[in-house]
């Protein structure tokens, strides 16, 4: 595997490319496929809820399920993850309850973050999934720091940071990979190159021939992978994880994929991209893996239908339950700014309650544009 060639294991029609043999059992393969179906099912439900105005915002990951599930299969329970906002699939695979994810998108009493952040900005400490923030790239160097801590403590854990092609231009991509190279920490830098950063195509993002080759600047291996090929992603991430776990230091992985949908529920891609999407629409990572499994008699139409129904029903039941819960308390505005609420915040809270009770009504016109 190199930084300029692209690793592929499953071809577009589900055939095996080259002489690759997988170390995954049939059960594991099927579990991976089911995780991809679940990911898309969750996404579809949430997009739908957003369109109906029942949640305020959503970021679809349609077409990027292989990247999420291929990576998610490798990482161990104790490993730390710094996810991007476009990877619900990996989170589900780590054991994050579907309920908690949906609750986050509602941002109400059920949300473990008290509705403080926009939808899809998850935080799940129990699963070592670090709080997602909107500013692009900041988490990359944080992942290096966590991996350094893991190294200093002498654990066998690793850390993985996930980001997009746009993220490679950020300041902390540079600091993150540079520090990681020097410190030789057990960190994977996994870039989903979906070829767009909102409306900016990859050619305007960087003149680097590939993103993987940026690894050269930091003295670490760079690997380019077909990101729509779940087995290729799995293999590349696994090898990089083994390297990191055994003290071999960090790697940069570029997963070549495509953002099939809009950037977010606020985006209208017809404004800036023509038919390029069409050619990529046929390159569906789920379809491709399904063909692969079907060739080996591991999957059927019936199973497909069951899996699709299952996630749909799960989502519906949870939505029904969560949707009727009340907002977080007004008090939650003031807690967690510091470990203890300091005097000036106590005063502000007290004044608010005294003068406005539980406060003001929401503005019905407020809507997020991006």
């Amino acid at each position, binding site marked *: 595997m190199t930084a300029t060639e692209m690793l592929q294991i499953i071809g577009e029609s589900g055939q095996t490319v080259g002489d690759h043999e997988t170390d995954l059992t049939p059960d594991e393969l099927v579990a991976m496929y089911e995780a991809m179906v679940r990911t898309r099912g969750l996404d579809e439900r949430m997009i739908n809820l957003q369109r109906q105005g029942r949640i305020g915002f959503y970021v679809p990951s349609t077409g990027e399920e292989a990247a999420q599930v291929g990576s998610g299969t490798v990482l161990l329970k104790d490993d730390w993850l710094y996810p991007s906002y476009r990877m619900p699939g990996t989170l589900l695979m780590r054991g994050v309850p579907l309920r908690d994810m949906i609750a986050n998108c509602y941002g109400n009493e059920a949300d473990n973050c008290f509705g403080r952040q926009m939808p899809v900005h998850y935080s799940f400490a129990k699963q070592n999934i670090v709080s997602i923030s909107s500013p692009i790239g900041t988490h990359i160097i944080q992942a290096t720091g966590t991996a350094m801590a893991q190294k200093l403590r002498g654990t066998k854990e690793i850390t993985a940071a996930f980001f997009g092609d746009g993220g490679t231009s*950020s300041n902390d991509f540079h600091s993150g990979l540079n520090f990681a190279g020097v410190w030789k920490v057990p960190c994977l830098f996994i870039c989903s190159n979906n070829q767009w950063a909102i409306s900016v195509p990859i050619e305007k993002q960087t003149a680097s021939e590939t993103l993987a080759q940026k690894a050269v600047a930091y003295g670490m291996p760079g690997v380019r992978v077909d990101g729509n090929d779940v087995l290729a992603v799995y293999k590349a991430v696994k090898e990089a994880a083994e390297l990191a776990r055994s003290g071999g230091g960090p790697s940069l992985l570029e997963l070549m994929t495509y953002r099939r949908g809009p950037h977010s529920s606020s985006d209208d891609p017809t404004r800036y991209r023509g038919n390029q999407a069409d050619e990529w629409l046929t390159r569906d990572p789920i379809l491709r893996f399904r063909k692969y499994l079907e060739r080996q008699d591991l999957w059927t139409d019936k199973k497909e239908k069951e899996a699709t129904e299952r996630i749909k029903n799960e989502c519906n039941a949870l939505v029904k339950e969560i949707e009727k819960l009340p907002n977080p308390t007004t008090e939650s505005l003031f807690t967690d700014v510091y470990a203890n609420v300091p005097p000036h915040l106590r005063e502000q809270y007290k004044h608010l309650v005294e*003068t406005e009770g539980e406060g003001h009504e929401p503005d019905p016109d407020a809507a997020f*544009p991006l």
Partner: protein
Amino acid sequence: MAEITIVQAVNDALKEEMTRDDDVVVLGEDVGVNGGVFRCTADLHEMFGDDRVIDTPLSESGIIGAAIGMSLYGLKAVPEIQFSDFIWPAFDQITSELAKFRYRSGGQFTCPVVIRTPYGGGIRGGHYHSQSPEVYFTHTSGLVVVVPSDAYDAKGLLKAAIRSPDPVLFLEPKKIYRAPKMEVPDDDYVVEIGKAAVRREGTDFTITAYGAMVEVAMAACEKAAEKGWNGEVLDLRTLVPLDEESLIASVTKTGRLVTLQEAPKFCGFSSELSAIVAEKAIDVMEAPIKRVAGFDTPFPYTLEHVYMPHADRVLNAITEVMTY
């Protein structure tokens, strides 16, 4: 006269200035074919081409740094930062470089970049799409900081900013980007930087506001009027250099001051207004100076409507100073 929104006013100002002056160049994330995520740069790419309407890589530091380099050479760069919450990677460029070039070079080098960026809450953007960062810049000597509150000013102030020899941070109140519409002359005009505007004359108390808070101040005054209190609304428009004279004149007349801002209260811009009054006009004050501001917490998502200042909250403060 056309009825336009603030978005349209910004867009018109850019079009007119780019037509007037070939040196004006726009750059930023998604400002090109996409026309900006808020549509402020719509049509520009078609009208002025790739060379003058430049989609950049995802780096605010790069956007502002490149804009500085262009402007040092003689172009007039007008970068957009997509949300002001994302301006921090560029803070070093703005604070250490943009603000200090003229001074440190003894006036040999100037880079009058105009940074446009939407700021403020009210769009359900949560933590990182709602903040009001003005005070981080108003403390930085060398920068001009402008915040329009309606379409007329947005257009006239942006045009003035583009023609200004100083670097300008132009904060666009995104809550009111699209409403209400306003009549704006078709002819070329500018609004002078450094002058506040009295939006409502009154004799009993003064409210200072800027950006999206001006309409909140106006609404609060309507409510106060029902109680027989006649408020004056001072729309600051330019935060640096501040129109101190108008501030002092207004409080000298009314003797009572409520300051209003969306940003967190502690060390916010309004604190400077209190300090100026306490330094120069404390004798005229007949009541404490009350600040209505965001809470000293990060900006929330679900409870944004509880967080943000609204007319009733301002009315409470008015009541406090009027009944003191």
